[in-house]
């Protein structure tokens, strides 16, 4: 941090020199130049002498105040440094360097909350200041992580959104923002961020995979397929890539190709459950019930409370008119995950078949409510994406 200040101070002086030459007497300019050179050479005593000389004749010289603040920081006299930076910004509120230095000093003292406004102000005045932007972006990312760890995803995302504005060409920031947006189901934001990540860092496999996931969330299956295909090409031995590609192909109704991807994923990671589950769903949809059941049972031998597999096996039993088994399996699925709409729906249908009307109505109502809630959630997400006051009620994917 002290090196950053020194570097910033020298930069400041060189960049402001033409202005200083115009607005200050030539002797003052010479002294400030000399002080800056002395600081660069590590001759802090000489720099201080020069700056004190300036301040004796011009006690409000904000350049001298700021440079002397830098000297004090290098001398580990932080209290005085803070006072000098504060005086500098008092004398000239739109002096970006002093705000930056004050912010950096606060950061050094662990006072991030005080630092951030100073760094923001510095960048508002001079958006090209890399010392301030680097420090601010670093701080915002740290604060975002803290917020996420505390479960405050909204704040975490907002902090990363700001960091992204200051560092649009930083692939890490873009990726972190995309990841948080993905977590919050803000698909469009996530897509934009991952696309930017990939522009800045081509062939970033994790960003490719994440972009595919975001497209899946947006129901843009063809776009998702393209990303996962690139991912699989980059990482052919990663089972999760083949599984994700398979899911996308299944959504695109390319069931044979989907099946091949799931089978490849199983070869690569035989102990997994997801690809067996997805294979089972394909078989269930085409009513190859025995094959579907085989796959779901494999899942359940490895994860006995897998709600999706229990529910799907319940559907198989329903289709086979083994209603007692269906009820048992679907109730177990709901016990594992009572928000599983499909399980409530098929349990309701099963109760209808066995004449248990009241229970059927109850389950079908739950299924309807869950479906409605999911739709509302999707629309809320879209409103958030559109920003304050925005509305996006015309979701085409009703």
């Amino acid at each position, binding site marked *: 941090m002290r090196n950053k200040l020194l570097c910033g101070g020298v930069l400041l002086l060189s960049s402001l020199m033409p202005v200083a030459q115009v607005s200050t007497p030539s002797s003052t300019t010479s002294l400030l130049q000399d002080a800056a050179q002395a600081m660069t050479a590590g001759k802090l005593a000489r720099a201080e002498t020069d700056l004190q000389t300036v301040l004796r004749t011009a006690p409000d010289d904000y350049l001298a105040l700021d440079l002397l603040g830098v000297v004090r920081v290098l001398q580990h006299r932080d209290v005085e440094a803070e006072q000098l930076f504060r005086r500098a910004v008092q004398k000239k509120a739109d002096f970006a360097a002093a705000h930056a230095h004050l912010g950096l000093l606060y950061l050094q003292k662990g006072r991030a909350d005080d630092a951030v406004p100073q760094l923001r102000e510095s960048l508002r005045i001079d958006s090209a200041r890399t010392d301030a932007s680097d420090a601010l972006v670093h701080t915002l990312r740290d604060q975002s992580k803290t917020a996420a760890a505390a479960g405050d995803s909204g704040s975490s995302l907002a902090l990363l959104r700001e960091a992204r504005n200051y560092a649009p060409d930083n692939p890490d920031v873009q990726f972190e923002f995309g990841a948080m947006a993905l977590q919050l189901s803000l698909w469009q934001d996530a897509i934009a961020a991952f696309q930017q990540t990939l522009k800045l860092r081509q062939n970033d496999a994790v960003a490719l995979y994440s972009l595919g996931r975001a497209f899946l969330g947006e129901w843009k299956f*063809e776009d998702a397929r393209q990303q996962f295909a690139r991912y699989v090409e980059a990482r052919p031995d990663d089972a999760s890539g083949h599984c994700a590609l398979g899911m996308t192909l299944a959504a695109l109704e390319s069931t044979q190709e989907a099946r091949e991807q799931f089978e490849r994923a199983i070869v690569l990671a035989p102990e997994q459950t997801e690809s067996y589950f997805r294979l089972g769903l394909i078989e269930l949809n*085409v009513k190859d019930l025995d094959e579907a059941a085989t796959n779901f049972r494999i899942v359940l031998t490895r994860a006995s409370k897998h709600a999706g597999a229990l529910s799907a096996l319940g559907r198989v039993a329903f289709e086979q008119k083994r209603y007692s088994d269906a009820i048992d399996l679907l109730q177990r699925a709901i016990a594992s995950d009572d928000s599983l*709409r499909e399980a409530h*729906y098929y349990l309701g249908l099963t109760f*209808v078949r066995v004449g248990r009307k009241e229970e059927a109505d109850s389950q079908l109502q739950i*299924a309807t409510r869950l479906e409605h809630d999911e739709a509302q959630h999707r629309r809320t997400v879209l409103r958030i994406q559109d920003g304050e006051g*925005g509305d996006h009620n*015309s979701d085409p994917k*009703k």
Partner: protein
Amino acid sequence: MKSFSKFSTRAMLSGIALIFGTWLSFAASPNSPTPGSFVDVTEKLGIHFRRQASPTSRKYLLETMGSGVALFDYDNDGRLDIFFANGARLDDPTPKNSIPKKDSPKYWNRLYHQKSDGTFEDVTECAGLTGLGYSTGVAVGDYDNDGFEDLYVAGYGHSTLYHNNGDGTFTDVTVAAGVAGSGWMTSAAWVDYDNDGRLDLVVARYMQWDFDDVFCGRPEKGGFRSYCHPDLFKPESVLLFHNDGGGKFSEVAHQAGIDKPGKGLGLAIADYDHDGFMDILLANDSMSEYLFHNRGNGTFEEVGLPSGAGLDSNGNTFAGMGVDFEDYNNDGWPDIIITDLANQRYALYTNLKDGTFDYSTTVTGLNAISLLHSGWGVRFLDYDNDGWKDLLIVQSHVIDTIETYDPNVRYREPPLLLRNERGKKFVDVSAASGDVFHQDWTARGLAVGDINNDGKLDAVVTSNDGPAWVLLNQTDTPNHWVTLNLVGVKSNRDAIGAQVRVSTTVGDQFATVTTSSSYQSSSDKRLHFGLGTADAIREIEIRWPSGIRQILRDQKPDRIVTIAEPLK
């Protein structure tokens, strides 16, 4: 030895024929299914209708939902005529509580009379059918059993019942009949739900909607305005008008238990449980689909969800729009097709004969075909007379800016022709079935009927804001056919609700007389059956709405047969 040689040669030949035949049937299906041939003859026949949606910058939902079309013979000359429902002027903005008006001839509904040479003439004004307000759906039925088809034109805020005077003119009898309705009315269906011999009227309503200036879309710079999602509006119940006789109707939806609020767009009728009473299917937008089971005592029970015909196989709702309720697999039990939006897949429900349905979209191949399509009007029709009801679906997304949301989905789309492979699979034969299947339309309404009485089913399609299309079926096929024109005596004269089985050497087929299905449209009430290679009809069995059963044997094919209801 000689006879053995003869025997073995014959056996060998028959074996080869068998193998060859088997191979042929495999080769023909499904890799090279028989395409259709539908030709656009709109201009040639003298049809110049253009539907006016009156689009505004406010993106009122009304302006994207289209209007329907009717194919019917209003003057009993044996030739089908065409009625088009049309929009009306919308101001930009249109004040709340407004009822739009047809203040220019371009907004008129249109009646085209088919002349003896097969061309059409516009007789709208003479017939007295210019219309009122923003018209949506149309339903044809002879509500007073006088032998002339009457017309119900649904609309926004007000619907109109036109009595056919039998002399080429119609009289607006809405007020006297008490069927004006209210709200946003969409499809309508004539059905004798209590089997009293008089047609009653069901009218679907979309939702509680007005010309409020609700912004939907993306408000940011570079964003756009779009049509609002129906979830923003409250559902609305159907109207059920009981025909009391004497030209009077009573609205009985509540008493009949059919007033469960929905977001109804499509209507179709069939007796799905063979109890002798017509049931009603309502395609709802973004809600569970409603199946109103007719209890036979003047009341209904909504059983969409418990019957398995309410949601898709994952328990999801979809944007139900067009609907048909016919037996696609020739098992004698009415099945259901409902069109919806892209990424939802058209919903096909197979009747399991026990009051429940199986979602058969995936197993019949409709999932892959319909994944990226958005459908409105839909009809089961046997375009190649092979004895299996195929599917004709007219398409377009509801949102004109959809391509900015999702580049994989298109606003304008060609129609879709799907061949029914013996009730097991549907195969897309659109590409080889004529130029019209390569044209991008904003289609909405679809009516089907044999316009030129040549034994092949034709179609009329409407667009949201533009022309209509008359599609003549010129499919080259040697297959036989029969068209049955049923005339009720004790039953309603249109015989709507009559259930017919046609039996030939190649199997049985079943159909129900109705004019209502598809989307806001009304089709030829005559029943058309493709008979494949069968050159004789063993048996025609009719179960009339009155309960009378009639059997005709040894009928000749390739003709239109008029059958009157026997006295008992």
